[in-house]
């Protein structure tokens, strides 16, 4: 059997896109009521669980740790991950983190991952989704890799680990690529990589016995001035709700709707 792995999966608590989402407050930050585990993170968690299960699961010494940074509610993203199957959780929370941009977030997460590495064996693999479903910048995997001096493999649509090597397939514009990197590595995965499992009743019960470690900035050796709005390198100066699109002309096809469509396009100078 392959060597066991210690995997950290980044999970984010994001506003549910099924409802209206809002930007509020002096820092123009996202309102996090009605939040859920970011859907795209479920693919990263599934990939981690599959790698660990191929290696004999928790009994063989594999670790799958769900790590979330965010206010008190973000612990729910960790809890959901434990119900789905993560073996343990870490919640990084500190009032000073509020309003962190990608650079400040990657700084705090890198410190948290170093802390997790110092606790027992070093982390082999950091897995993330392809983007958060709120900020959607996709910057964290690259910035985390730069801060940790790990290779990055982003937008993986398949992933294998053999010995010390990660092999992944990815789409890159006009090309499909096969890429290889040495562990430890940061890998972001797309929604093409697998079919995430759902938590079942047994998983929900088992999650109650799993450990969630709470970390503050002091625990990971980060100064409050390095994160949050103060430590961010970008500032959102204004945010205006776009007027919702309103419905225009709706017609029912009476046999000539194709012609009417072309008339409409011609009137809009779109032909």
């Amino acid at each position, binding site marked *: 059997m392959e060597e066991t792995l210690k995997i950290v999966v980044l999970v984010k608590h994001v506003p549910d*896109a*099924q409802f*209206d*989402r809002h*930007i509020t407050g002096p820092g123009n930050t996202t309102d996090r009521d009605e939040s859920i585990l970011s859907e*795209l993170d479920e693919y990263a968690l599934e990939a981690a669980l599959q790698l660990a299960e191929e290696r004999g699961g928790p009994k063989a010494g594999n670790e799958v740790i769900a790590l979330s940074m965010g206010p008190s509610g973000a612990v729910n993203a960790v809890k959901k991950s434990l119900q789905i199957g993560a073996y343990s959780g870490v919640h990084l929370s500190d009032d000073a983190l509020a309003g962190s941009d*990608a*650079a400040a977030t*990657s700084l705090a997460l890198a410190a948290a991952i170093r802390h997790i590495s110092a606790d027992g064996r070093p982390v082999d693999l950091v897995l993330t989704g392809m983007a958060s*479903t709120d900020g*959607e*910048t*996709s*910057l*964290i*995997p*690259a*910035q985390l890799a*730069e801060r940790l*001096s790990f*290779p*990055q*493999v982003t937008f993986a649509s398949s992933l294998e680990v053999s010995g010390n090597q990660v092999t992944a397939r990815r*789409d*890159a*514009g006009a*090309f499909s*690529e*096969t*890429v*290889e*990197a040495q562990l430890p*590595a940061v890998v972001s995965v797309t929604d093409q990589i697998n079919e995430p499992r759902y938590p079942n009743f047994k998983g929900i019960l088992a999650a109650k016995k799993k450990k969630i470690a709470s970390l503050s900035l002091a625990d990971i050796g980060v100064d409050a001035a390095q994160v949050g709005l103060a430590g961010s*390198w*970008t500032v959102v*100066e*204004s*945010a*205006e*709700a*776009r007027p*919702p*699109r309103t*419905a*225009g*002309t*709706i*017609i*029912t*096809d009476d046999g*000539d709707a*194709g012609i009417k*469509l*072309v008339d*409409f*396009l*011609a009137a*809009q100078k*779109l*032909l």
Partner: protein
Amino acid sequence: MANALVFIDNPGAALKKSSLELLTIARSLGETAVAFTGELNDDVAATLGAYGVTTVYVPSAEDLDNYLVGPKAAYLAAAVAASGATAVLLDNSPEGKDIAGRLGIKLNAGVITDVVGVEADGTAHKSVLAGSYNTTAKATTPVTVLSVKANNVEPAPVGAAPAPATATVDVPADAIANSARIAARTEKPVSGRPDLSEARIVVAGGRGVDGDFAPVEELADALGAAVGASRAATDAGWIGHDAQVGQTGVTVSPQLYISAGISGAIQQKAGMQTSKVIVAINKDAESPVFEIADYGIIGDLFKVLPQATAEIKKRKG
């Protein structure tokens, strides 16, 4: 000393429209230099000159393309230092954003992605939360890194101009350390249609096409449009994942988006609702897509699309 540095990554024989857009935005910020990779042919150099570029930086190493992101970010950081630029502009492609992210950490520079407009002072405009908010953002650092979405400015050359000077930038020797290596690369089949993220017009099909994309493709070809799809259609395997428009696919913002047989759930809406004009064709009058369509047709796409295609061909002669 340049004010703005544009990263142009291996363009091949000619510059892409999105690169010309970046050069046009860069010029509005001041003197523009380019950090280039790949072969710099005379035509490309002349085009760069025509867009007002004064200096083109090329890397000392040629194997940057064999590694993922890391070495290109290291090269670009060295080019920023050489040029003295305070604004760096990149494509908003996945790789462009990855390079922007790493560059930001290397330079202690704020990174703003998904930019749709840039003011002279570096303030960036973007649309967030699936197009429900317009925001302005600014880097608070000496250097600003911006990844800019296609189709937001018209490329505008300055006219006759001297060819730019070229200068070689040393790629740090340790740039390939800790980088993933590209072991194999295969070219995907070329459709002959415009690139989805850059197309002026997109025609997209969803569950309603029921496995048959022909009417969607024929209308797209009559309009010179790119073909898109909903997640339901790509998950069903009716069309490649590259065509997926939506939160987990490509975000498009064309002049015209024609949605055929797509209900318009939030996943899809997130990828297209900043389109200038939206046309929807769906059998189900209750489809949410009709709430955001400028022109909606309740009808059978297998009747409406071929009729429109034939009419367009007739009018175009």
